């Protein structure tokens, strides 16, 4: 696939102008890095960095049954208070993960679900299919919205220069904004383990926001740094660490499953799995020897193969870190070996997050 076949975000030119090295990410042309992954990682952990996340999807759910509908398609309890957002998983009838997403209550009977780019079309089709008897309208506005994530300990105070009062916005909350002559949304969320916000604006306004943030000293960051930051923070990468073969329990996200809810898609399968116990579970590892663990590396305890990594990287804070699906007997504290380029390297199973976030 050449670059001309790829979808471009409205920030593509701005990213290229800022020195972004552009790559194919699930069919989107996005920057993998600007100055360098380590420098960008440092900016987000110590100051403020920004990411073009315009490829992410925005699905609006409106109507009398909007909340009831979201409760039906999410395994978590979706908050029904204006301003509040809830992280949840959207499941198949088998209880496996279609997507992980945050649903925000904008106002009574109007919600916004922000979904993963690669899942947006499938999510939308699934929402429509499930809408059935609910009195709701589901609109996929992913193509109309662009989004910048501003992340780091200085992110919120910096954005406060552009969006006065954003410092008062609570974690996981949303606010409607007027910015640069357009209506949009700001949410106090992110995918880095740091405090920060994500700002949604119509496509034609986002480049102006990028420029304003550059002027305020926010460092452009790419997908490479984003992947290190999210793995340190213990966040799933959908499509790698979670997919339609894995349940939230297997993905070590049992906390998003609320079996006490009256009903939701996938509930019966999850209740059965909980009663039976898990065969495999997403488990985190820290390397004890040299090397960098990557997706696809096998995990061993002695001669016995225990499973395969789904994500792995070099963390400037923790060196080699990874997560993977291994048999459920590999408890935190277990010594294992990870095979990297034919060489077995010692590692320890640990609890996530690697990075104890300050948010």
């Amino acid at each position, binding site marked *: 696939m050449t670059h001309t076949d790829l979808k471009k975000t409205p920030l593509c030119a701005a990213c290229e102008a800022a020195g972004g090295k552009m790559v194919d990410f699930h069919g989107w042309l996005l920057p993998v890095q600007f100055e360098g992954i380590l420098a960008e990682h440092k900016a987000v952990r110590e100051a403020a960095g920004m990411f073009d996340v315009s490829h992410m999807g925005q699905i609006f759910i409106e109507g009398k049954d909007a909340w009831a509908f979201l409760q039906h398609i999410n395994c978590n309890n979706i908050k029904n208070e204006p301003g509040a957002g809830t992280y949840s998983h959207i499941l198949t009838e088998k209880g496996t993960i279609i997507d992980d997403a945050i649903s925000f209550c904008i106002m009574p009977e109007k919600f916004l679900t922000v979904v993963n780019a690669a899942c947006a079309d499938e999510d939308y089709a699934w929402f429509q299919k499930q809408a059935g008897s609910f009195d709701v309208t589901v609109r996929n506005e992913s193509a109309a919205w662009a989004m910048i994530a501003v992340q780091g300990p200085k992110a919120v105070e910096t954005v406060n220069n552009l969006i006065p009062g954003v410092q008062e916005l609570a974690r996981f909350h949303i606010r409607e904004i007027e910015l640069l002559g357009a209506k949009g949304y700001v949410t106090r969320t992110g995918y880095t383990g740091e405090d920060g916000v994500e700002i949604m604006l119509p496509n034609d306004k986002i480049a102006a926001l990028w420029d304003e943030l550059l002027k305020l000293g926010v460092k452009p960051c790419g997908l490479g740094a984003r*992947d290190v930051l999210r793995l340190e923070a213990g966040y799933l990468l959908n499509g790698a660490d979670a997919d339609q073969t894995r349940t939230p329990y297997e993905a070590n996200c049992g906390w998003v499953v609320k079996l006490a809810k009256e009903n939701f898609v996938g509930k019966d399968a999850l209740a059965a799995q909980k009663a039976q116990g898990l065969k495999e579970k997403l488990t985190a590892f820290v390397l004890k020897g040299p*090397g960098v663990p990557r997706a696809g590396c096998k995990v061993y305890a002695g001669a016995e193969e225990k499973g395969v990594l789904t994500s792995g990287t070099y963390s400037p804070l923790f060196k080699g870190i990874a997560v993977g699906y291994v048999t459920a007997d590999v408890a935190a504290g277990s010594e294992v070996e990870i095979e990297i380029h034919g060489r077995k390297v010692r590692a320890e199973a640990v609890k996530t997050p690697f990075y104890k976030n300050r948010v």
Partner: protein
Amino acid sequence: MHTEENSRFAKTHEWAHMEGDVATVGISNHAQEEISDIVFVDLPKVGQQVTAGQNCCVIESVKSASEIYSPVSGEVIEVNEALAGDPALVNREPHAGGWLFKVKMTAPAEYENLMDLSAYKATLNK
């Protein structure tokens, strides 16, 4: 002493510099820029036989693992121990302190088949 100018290059972006029958091997400045943020170099072992065009070493950056192909054949007689503690030396000085290993060549004619700097640079502009 090896420099960018007095080295020869493989199309897979390794360089070799020959003194007597020993070739010092590293990766080009272009290669280190592409790989970026090198965090670990899995060097060959001293005594290991390497073959021109075959992978013998892995360079890990934050984002990916890159296989390194030996530009010449022979026996590895020395590896750059400094890279164990400072792998980013390959980023900072790809043609000086960031060399990878030295090979006692069994087929010195292979060296003559490598590109000089200007021919190598021409391949980068294509």
